[in-house]
């Protein structure tokens, strides 16, 4: 959180999803904050990671018209007969002139600086749909608490409009950040990626001591909690892991619901748009029998988990 950001009261948002049904109860609007301090091996939103605007190139939409190369002040955009369009990311200053000039929508960008008022305006489009369905606004990411001042102001605004609020967090933030938003947050969607600290470090690049401590503390403070467990076959599905996570969650009475979220590969195209070569990562979606057996394994340990995709 930069001090400039605090003064300007703007946030960096990479997506606004209307009619969002999977990030809390009812019909919701989910706001995706850009910037994350985990590096999950299975991340399906690679555009969510870096806390800055990024240029994206959707190759299949490119018509090779040359408009981008013609306007790029840095010469970072090259139209090359043999390779089609080619972007020199090192030379690119992210002025976005090329994307503005692109007629086909092949060049675009992830990340939009938005003021709280502008974002609220967009959210309120969906307001009529919240009441009947018991929906509201979800703040997700990335890690929304990395822009905690902006988030806090958004939550306050939502509450001023009497909207239900949810914060989707990985929990790897100072407890003070969580405490600051707690009074305005009706529901926390809290991700547990792994229990064993070394496994967690291998999978996400960071230790999980603080994540687990924050979860317990939120529970003690009576926050409403829905815990979400990404399930990545071969990464976080050992019997020890399942047993430990089940024990942890069973002993936090504030946890109302536990959702199992199986890995999916829908994010792959976005890696290509960002010119990120993932190489071979060993990731795959679980089969249906695997999914059922993991769900049952949690059940055996006394933890009821829901799998919305089943």
């Amino acid at each position, binding site marked *: 959180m930069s001090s400039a950001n605090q003064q300007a009261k703007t946030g960096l948002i990479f997506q606004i*999803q209307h*009619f969002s049904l999977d990030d809390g109860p009812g019909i919701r609007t989910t706001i995706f904050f850009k910037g994350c301090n985990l590096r999950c091996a299975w991340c399906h939103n690679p555009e969510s990671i870096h806390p800055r605007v990024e240029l994206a190139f959707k190759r299949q939409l490119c018509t090779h018209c040359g408009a981008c190369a013609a306007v790029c002040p840095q010469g970072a955009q090259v139209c090359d007969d043999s390779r089609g369009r080619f972007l020199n990311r090192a030379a690119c200053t992210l002025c976005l002139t090329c994307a503005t000039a692109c007629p086909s929508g092949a060049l675009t960008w992830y990340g939009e600086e938005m003021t709280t008022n502008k974002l609220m305006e967009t959210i309120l489009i969906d307001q*009529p749909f919240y*009441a009947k369905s018991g929906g509201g606004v979800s703040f997700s990411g990335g890690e929304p608490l990395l822009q905690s001042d902006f988030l806090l102001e958004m939550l306050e605004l939502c509450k001023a409009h009497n909207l239900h609020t949810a914060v989707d967090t990985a929990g790897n933030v100072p407890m003070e950040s969580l405490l600051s938003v707690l009074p305005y947050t009706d529901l926390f969607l809290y991700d547990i990626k792994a229990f064993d600290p070394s496994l967690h470090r291998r999978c996400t690049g960071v230790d999980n001591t603080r994540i687990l401590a924050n979860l317990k503390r939120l529970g003690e403070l009576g926050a409403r909690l829905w815990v979400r467990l990404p399930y990545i076959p071969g990464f976080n599905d050992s019997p020890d892991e399942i047993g430990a996570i089940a024990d942890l969650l069973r002993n936090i009475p504030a946890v109302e619901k536990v959702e199992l979220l199986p890995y999916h590969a829908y994010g792959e195209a976005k890696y290509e748009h960002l010119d990120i070569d993932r190489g071979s990562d060993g990731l795959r979606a679980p089969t249906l029998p695997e999914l059922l057996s993991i769900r049952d394994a949690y059940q055996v340990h006394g933890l009821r988990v829901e799998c919305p995709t089943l």
Partner: protein
Amino acid sequence: MDIETLQSRVDAVPLDRPEGSGYTDKTPARRQAFLLRQQVYIRELQRHASEPMVIRMAHCLGSTLMEKEIIFEDDRLAGFYLFAGNNFTSPANTAEEVLYARLDRSDLDPQACQDMDELVKYVERGMCTRGPSGHVIAGYERVLTVGIGGLIAETEAAIAAQGETPFRAASLIICRAAADFIRRYGQKAAELAQVSAGTSQHNYARVGDACLWVAEKPPRTFFEAVQLLCLVHEIIITEQRSGSLSLGRFDRYLAPFYERDKAAGIIDLDGAAGIVEAFFLKLASVPRTFQNLTVGGYDSINGYCCNDLTRIALRTCRKLRKDQPLLTLRWHSTMPVDLWEDILGLITTGTGFPALFNDEVCFKAKQRSGISAQDAEQYALVGCVELSVAGREYAHTEGLRLSWLKVLELMLNGGRCLVSGEEFILSESRDLNAIRDFDDFYAWFKRELRHFTDTAIRAANLLDANLPDHWPSPFLSATMDHCIQSGLDVTAGGTIYNNSAINAAGMANAVDSLLAIRKYVFEERRFTLSELADMLRCDFVGNESLRLMIFNQCARFGSDAEAAQMMTDLTGYFHSLISVYGNPRGGRWELGFYSVDNHAWMGEKTGASPDGRRKGYALANAMSPVQGTEKHGPTVVIQSIVKADHTCFGNGMVLDLKFHPRFFTPPAHRQAFRYLVETYYDMGGMEIQFNVIDRKTLLDAQLHQEQYRDLVVRVSGFSAYFTTLGLTVQNEIIDRTEFENI
């Protein structure tokens, strides 16, 4: 009608249209019945040449019924449906209507002649469509109450009290013929029972008894009621060329028969379901015929109608997966919540049924069209989505359809059609370079919209005045309220409500195009109006980058607040234009925002447009946004749609949303779906319908037609077998935005 014209029309009827493309059928029995009807109509028209047309038509239909072979396709229910194609009971096309109008009337002034000539061009070149009249719900409920004998008695009484009119004489002829026809079914069934055994014997005997009873008398049981309904419907569709002969509030008017039988212990849910299934299969035997059947709905006498028959209808449609009947459900805030499970069960089959209507908005819309509050509560759906009062309303629901986008095309091209080169009369011929700002252009668009609307309605009224002289419908009229009393056929305004409708097409394309013109011509000055017109004439050839830029970046109805505002303004304006008109039957003109499949056909005849749409591509479907431009999901689309006042749409409207099948898997999504619909209704939405099918399946169905013969999809206000649709319509459906959200 002279005999030479008749004969030439008969010769022109194609007998072997591909399956599903029209009302005819290739099976030998149907072809035989079709030919018989033609022969009988020609013979009887000649034989009674000196009589009034309504009497001649009664003889035509009566003799057809008398000579029609009695065929049983199914021992459960008597009835053999055939749609007659283009022959005698409605004009072949607009040009023929104009011909008759000119022959009949020597008093036509030059303006009238010019209007009619313009309309013929409009219809040929994608500015207008004009369908046959007679999209109607016959007085089935009345026939079930009084029987055919009751109609005969009422006619006799009216003749005794008020004297004979040609229609009353015709009514007697045709009602007696109808009774004889039903009796013949009874006799044949009794014969078949004699030579059958087991279940079949039982079934034939039951059908035989029922037919012999209901030939004249009102039905006593649920089975007899459905049997009579089934055969009266056969006579109605034998009389009418038109499709869209609809069934009304099926679960409400049959409920008393069912409840009585159930209380007496002679029927249960399964028994009734079997009878309904047999009836639905009869309706399904004539594909692509727009036979709408309505269930549910609130009225202040009975409350919300949700009974066993409501559920049976939903479940039977789900089981059969046919394109007929088109099933509609009337929603009201008093609808029992648990009915949603049956509704969702049917929606997730992907057949596009049921279409869901919002009662409160429909009540208001009908009242604005001159229908009494009490009758408005009894509305049901005709054809695609047309609101109509069963048995009391003869509305020409397809009287006209007018493309807003074609108006814009002609403005930008000096009145010349971009596809055909044909010239049209504009109200003002203007130099594009002299138009200084967008307000000036927009005001001109409105004036031209008025000009084309005025011309089309004036012409349609002249043509409608001709209907009773050439295309009356005596049997339909006998079933309708007030015709026997008034002594007039429906085409002459004999029943209670007699409106005509004009439907809009290409609305979203026109709005997006106008906003593109504002942005690129008048605000950013990237090109002039003349330069834009040149690009459109060339279908953007050489300007593909510019086309893509406009297509991807211009403001779009469905996601842009200003576009929604303009749509609201134009909708109100269009409604005000047509509301001042009456029609020759004493009714009014009302407005519809649905496009059948005409948005595809009209698009084929429309050149490239300023919203970046290429020449020949389909127009937007009904009131939905332009295909593929919805980027923010259904809640945002709905916000745009409900800005317009849906009580303007006395003739119905369509909002079509497409969902991926997986959307409905999580229970939370099914719940959310219900809340989406209910919130749309709270905000003033009239109708919503759904396609639930993935793009991959549709693409595969295009490649492997033979494997997808039974794939039913929602087109626009109706559903059809996907593989029977034209390529433009197929592609248009594939290009609609799909909401997945998983």
